[in-house]
């Protein structure tokens, strides 16, 4: 029972991260991806909770000052 809970918990955590990464890589998600995401997110309250946690870590990872030479605005200009 406890093992089931843990492995399920881990699977949800992994899925949450897959979505965060997918969304990072894709600025304009297509309707199919959005539909799949909405379906996953609403399937169980634990999904939304895991997603919010993963998303918070991802957001705050973006506030860590880099140790390497990184340009931030170059790509914004390229986006157009």
């Amino acid at each position, binding site marked *: 029972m406890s093992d089931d809970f843990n492995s399920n918990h881990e699977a949800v955590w992994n899925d949450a991260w897959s979505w965060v990464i997918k969304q990072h890589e894709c600025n304009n998600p297509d309707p199919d991806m959005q539909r799949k995401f909405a379906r996953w997110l609403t399937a169980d309250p634990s999904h939304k909770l895991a997603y919010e946690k993963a998303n918070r870590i991802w*957001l*705050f*990872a973006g*506030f860590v000052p880099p140790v*390497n030479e990184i340009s931030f605005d170059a*790509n914004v*200009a390229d*986006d157009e």
Partner: protein
Amino acid sequence: MQVDSSVRTLGEVLIFNHAQLRSIALKIVGTTELADDVLQEAYLKLVEGAYAREVEKPFNYCCQVVRNLALDYYRRRSLEDTYRIYTEDGELPHVPYECTPEKIISGRQLIESIDNALGKLPPRTRNAFELYRLSGLTQREIAKELDCSVTLVNFMIKDAVEALMGCKV
């Protein structure tokens, strides 16, 4: 209260470069209203000390914070649209925070723990991750930049993400 002087510096950098930083946000979020929201939040983040270390290049760091927040705004908005379109009632399922066993840690603590986790990675892995997370380069572009294979970049990013997955939030 040593922090105060560097906090003020970052806040000042943001104010002095307001127009330029606003245009970075505007390009991402699309409306001046949202761009102003982003700038406002960036200012609050910088003032409340949402950074872990001494920042070497304050202007670059402000660009980073603004861009990061703008992208987050943009994603959140498209997430809300997704709900409206794809769920029957358009309501977000309510998940009270009380059901998380762990306490919510402060932004500053979280940044420190992420910084620590990234600090344990091999330097090249961290470099690949920073290019991925902050510059928004594709894995292919990172491979070119670091002169290695796309497969290796993929592995390095996976390692970095795994390190993040272990951070307490």
